[in-house]
């Protein structure tokens, strides 16, 4: 089922004595979520992701705007009739029910033709429990589970009823890498197989990018960019999106375009075409640095961090916004940690220029 | 076993120390009674500045009794309290609770009319003998009478005559029943012919205890012996109950407990014979100074006050009732002496006359009765409808004239219950016919059993009587006990099972 959000806005009354006006949690969000796709919702903490999910599932009433499921306006439909499944950021497991009862709970709500026999229910429940590997915990109460286990129960509970629309609010935040990967792939697999339209909130951009069909980047309630993950990564529309995606984050330099060249400090680091002379923000992805003995960008070396398969070269530069510049290189690259400076060349496709005033992207002609 | 030591009077009232004594009093029908108590206290305190009297008012003798009982256990009894002789009998089961007054009364200095008194108290022979007699138990005097009253019948003479009867000199039960029956005739709309109202209860008795007691006395039938043997349940009683039932059935008779104050009905023209204490006389009659009902409801009629109905008009019998005062024992004899002085003060003419003028009460001393002030009061009967309200003064007269015809019931521990029981018989029978139940021998039998156990008449004095053989447990009790036992067996079984489970687990 495709979901249309039209001008969706949600305001909360403010409490902050100093600030005034409402907290605008979601601000005129318009977007058509294609049928059967998995959408990743990304953004910094407090940008309105959970609120958006709450609006879609009907737990919050929008201050403005409409929501359509398919062609039908569901803006005023109470949540229990929307047929959505949801994993809450805080799990919201029923504390008085065992894990099994928690998972069975949505199934027991089915009415009419949908109604399942007891054994079918159990079957479905244990299947869902299997997906997230909690078969051993079926008789425990939520309070006797670890954080990750609780989260897995919440996922099983959302999946078990095979909803029309699946909303996942940071469903994997408490899982370890392996389980996270596994679960995320299970979710992806189920989603692909059942074509349930899914919205997946995560702060982990790698996660978002690897499983989403499209990602939506939000900031303070306002959508910044929507697109295929790699497109957004490779072609951010503004400084915020560029900064937001990528770990380690993009490195931002004070730069100048002078005579068709980007200069950082005194060094002309990259030729750019079709951009009038002006001050700019220059963003360089960590993998945009090439270790080069005679590279134009000279930074003072702080150290090298090893991160499993890669090394991260940590350095500083007076014109860099980031306190530390991180450049990623394969761990086979040797860096002389004794030396004081390190010199880089920049890969053109990994460098983006942004307007100094509003942070909008400046594209080469 | 309780016993009362006789009290030895101190040589001299110690005026150097302050004494505080508590006086528990009852004010029944009239606000001014409170003021009279208060005035008596102020006056007394001016005479004896070192004695302070704290007044605590009750509206119910029963409450005083309950509180005294409670306070006997904690040794915090009041110093002086208004009471019924019945109750004193119970107080006496405690150790040295109530001071026997014989010694005090006769003490030349602080006794009645004693030389050291600062006020004019009556001599012992100035207290009406019968009244003082009522206050003696086992040969000792434990209280002084404070006020006396009796019952009288307040009659709507207009209606009696309208029904074609004339009042005899002395009322008889037969007469009352007959007139009452006659008054129950109704017209086609269901209104009573006699008053044209929808309500008419020709005969209402306020205190059914007294009704039964007096009827039995008039019939010379058994009620109780002096040593507490109960004779209430006898054939005469049964006979009387049948009569009462018969008239209750026709709607000719009702009681206060079932209906309401007789005065309200009488004044509204809804009752012809209202029997109530003479102490309630100010409420009775067309011109009653006190009333529960509004002006509009009053009906004009001629009110007659007569002696209660008799079986033998030649030898009328009526009950004597009214509060007495007793003194409680304290460690400090001086305190007791102070209490005694105050008690005596209540018998002075000022207090006696003032109080008796509030209602149809009679002073208990001849000194007061014969005093010009009181005689003047009596003589001004009917001068106004307040202080000299004729019904009230007539009611007082009734007792003054018939002191010799009064009687009191024997007093023993449990006599109060017996009183209640005799009233209860009348109430139950009346209620039963109202509920359309048959009053027959079987009913009466059950009634006697019920009432006897309700008032514990079978074991009037638990301290003296031993255990009775109670026979086998009734089935309900067995059911109750076995339920409890069963429940505990189950609970224990459950707990043990739980514990076993836990044990097995670890």
């Amino acid at each position, binding site marked *: 089922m495709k979901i249309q959000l039209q001008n969706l806005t949600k305001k909360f009354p403010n409490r902050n004595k100093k600030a005034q006006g409402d907290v605008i949690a979601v601000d005129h969000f318009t977007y058509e979520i294609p049928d059967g796709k998995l959408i990743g919702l990304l953004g910094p903490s407090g940008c309105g992701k959970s609120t958006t999910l709450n609006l879609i599932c009907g737990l919050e009433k929008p201050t403005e705007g409409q929501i359509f499921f398919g062609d039908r306006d569901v803006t005023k439909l109470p949540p229990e009739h929307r047929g959505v499944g949801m994993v809450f950021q805080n799990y919201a497991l029923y504390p008085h029910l065992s894990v099994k009862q928690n998972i069975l709970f949505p199934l*027991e709500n089915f009415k009419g033709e949908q109604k399942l026999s007891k054994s079918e229910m159990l079957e479905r429940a244990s299947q869902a429990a299997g997906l997230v590997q909690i078969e051993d915990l079926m008789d425990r109460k939520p309070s006797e589970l670890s954080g990750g286990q609780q989260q897995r129960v919440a996922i099983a509970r959302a999946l078990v009823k095979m909803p029309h629309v699946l909303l996942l609010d940071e469903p994997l935040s408490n899982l370890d890498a392996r389980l996270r990967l596994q679960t995320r792939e299970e979710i992806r697999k189920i989603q692909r197989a059942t074509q349930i339209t899914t919205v997946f909130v995560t702060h982990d951009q790698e996660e978002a990018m690897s499983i989403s069909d499209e990602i939506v980047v939000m900031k303070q309630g306002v959508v910044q960019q929507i697109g295929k993950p790699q497109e957004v990564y490779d072609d951010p529309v503004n400084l915020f999106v560029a900064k937001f995606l990528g770990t380690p984050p993009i490195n931002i330099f004070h730069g100048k375009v002078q005579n068709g060249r980007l200069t950082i400090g005194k060094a002309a680091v990259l030729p750019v075409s079709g951009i009038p002379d002006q001050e700019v923000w220059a963003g360089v992805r960590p993998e945009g640095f090439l270790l080069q003995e005679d590279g134009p960008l000279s930074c003072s070396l702080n150290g090298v961090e090893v991160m499993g398969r890669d090394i991260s070269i940590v350095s500083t530069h007076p014109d860099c916004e980031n306190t530390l510049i991180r450049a990623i290189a394969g761990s086979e690259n040797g860096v002389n940690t004794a030396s004081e400076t390190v010199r880089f060349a920049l890969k053109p496709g990994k460098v983006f220029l942004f307007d100094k005033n509003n942070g909008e992207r400046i594209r080469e002609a | *076993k309780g016993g009362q030591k006789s009290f030895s009077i101190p040589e001299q009232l110690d005026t150097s120390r302050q004494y505080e004594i508590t006086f528990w009093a009852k004010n029944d029908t009239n606000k001014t009674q409170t003021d009279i108590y208060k005035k008596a206290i102020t006056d007394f305190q001016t005479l004896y500045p070192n004695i302070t009297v704290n007044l605590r008012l009750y509206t119910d003798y029963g409450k005083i009794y309950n509180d005294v009982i409670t306070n006997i*256990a904690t040794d915090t009894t009041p110093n002086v309290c208004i009471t019924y002789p019945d109750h004193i009998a119970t107080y006496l089961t*405690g150790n040295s609770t109530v001071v026997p007054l014989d010694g005090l009364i006769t003490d030349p200095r602080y006794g009645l009319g004693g030389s050291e008194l600062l006020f004019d108290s009556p001599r012992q022979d100035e207290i009406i003998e019968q009244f003082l007699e009522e206050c003696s138990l086992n040969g000792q005097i434990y209280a002084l009478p404070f006020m006396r009253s009796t019952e009288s019948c307040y009659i709507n003479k207009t209606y009696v005559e309208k029904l074609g009867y004339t009042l005899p000199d002395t009322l008889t039960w037969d007469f009352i029943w007959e007139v009452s029956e006659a008054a129950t005739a109704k017209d086609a709309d269901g209104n009573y012919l006699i008053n044209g109202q929808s309500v008419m209860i020709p005969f209402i008795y306020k205190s059914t205890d007294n009704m039964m007691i007096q009827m039995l006395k008039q019939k010379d039938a058994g009620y109780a012996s002096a040593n507490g043997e109960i004779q209430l349940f006898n054939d005469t009683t049964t006979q009387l109950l049948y009569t009462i039932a018969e008239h209750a059935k026709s709607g000719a008779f009702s009681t206060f407990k079932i209906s309401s104050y007789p005065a309200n009905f009488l004044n509204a023209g809804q009752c012809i014979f209202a029997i109530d204490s003479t102490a309630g006389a100010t409420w009775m009659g067309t011109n009653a100074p006190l009333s529960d009902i509004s002006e509009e409801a009053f009906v004009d009629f001629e009110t007659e006050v007569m002696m209660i109905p008799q079986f033998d008009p030649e030898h009328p019998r009526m009950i004597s009732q009214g509060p007495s005062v007793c003194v409680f024992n304290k460690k400090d004899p001086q305190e007791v002496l102070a209490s005694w002085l105050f008690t005596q003060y209540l018998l002075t003419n000022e207090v006696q006359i003032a109080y008796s003028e509030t209602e149809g009460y009679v002073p208990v001393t001849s000194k007061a009765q014969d005093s010009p002030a009181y005689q003047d009061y009596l003589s001004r009967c009917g001068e106004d409808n307040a202080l000299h309200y004729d019904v009230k003064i007539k009611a007082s007269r009734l007792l003054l004239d018939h002191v010799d015809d009064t009687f009191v019931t024997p007093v023993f521990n449990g006599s109060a*219950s017996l009183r209640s029981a005799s009233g209860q018989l009348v109430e139950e029978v009346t209620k039963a016919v109202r509920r359309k139940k048959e009053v027959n021998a079987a009913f009466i039998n059950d009634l006697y059993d019920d009432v006897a156990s309700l008032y514990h008449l079978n074991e009037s004095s638990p*301290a003296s009587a031993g255990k009775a053989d109670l026979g086998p447990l009734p089935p309900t009790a067995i059911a109750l006990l076995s339920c409890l036992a069963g429940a505990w067996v189950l609970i224990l079984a459950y707990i043990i099972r739980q514990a076993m489970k836990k044990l097995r687990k670890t």
Partner: protein
Amino acid sequence: MKNDNSFSGSGKAWLYLLPAFLFLGVFMIYPLIDVFIYSFEEGYNFASQTSFGTGGYNYSYVLHDPYFLQAVKNTFLLVLITVPVSTGLALLISVALSSVKPLRDLFQTIYFLPYVTNTLAVGLVFMVLFKKTAYSDGLVNLLIHWFGGSSVDFIDGPYWAKMTVLCLYTIWVVMPFKILILTSALASVNQNYYRAAQVDGTSKLRIFTRITLPMISPMLFYLVITGFIGAFKAYSDAVALFGTDLNAAGMNTIVGYVYDMLYGSSGGYPSYASAAAILLFAIVLTITCINLLISRKHVHYI
């Protein structure tokens, strides 16, 4: 860091409990022991503070006394009728109350009113409403007439009529407390669970039975236990309606029986009163134990 191991655990807990236990000890437990002793002293007399022996005679007497048995029966009936009815009704009203917005405050205030007033006064009003006098049948009978029934004397009439009034009055009196407790219990349920259940498509009824009820079960259970105990201790309600002579009215309760025995004429029968009280204590203790055991299964603490 100061190590005060010695002061942790039991010691501390008992310190917290000390004031409560001190007061309870002096004003509840000590009197209870007193009563227990009385209950075995045969024929104890308050005034003289003497008895004629020790033994179980008091119990035997009380168990033989038809008035005691009547009181037991009345009390059980009262408990069995009023506790479920009032708790159920209070639950219904509280749920209704929390499901509406407009006028909620007004209703809440109204419902609490009975708690504030003197029960004696309200008892009188009830009596006026139900009593049949020479003049009128009373308001309730008027209503019964309207619906085509014939009038009943509720105050002096047949047993079931009196019991009905007593139950109605008791329910009326205990409702405000129950509504108060239940509405605040309902309000304190974490909204997250409702949200989750709603998203799961749960019907209102099921949310109520599967989420709300278990969540408020501790409070509900509190009400049931205290309701039981309270109803077993009923006395003043009956007095307000039927006057002090409850035995005669056949409407006595166990506590009323105890009270009458204590203060009855002839100096009271404290030993019988004590025996009856201990029996009452045993009954209520049993029922509370059963309640507690049941609660272990059905009450959910979060």
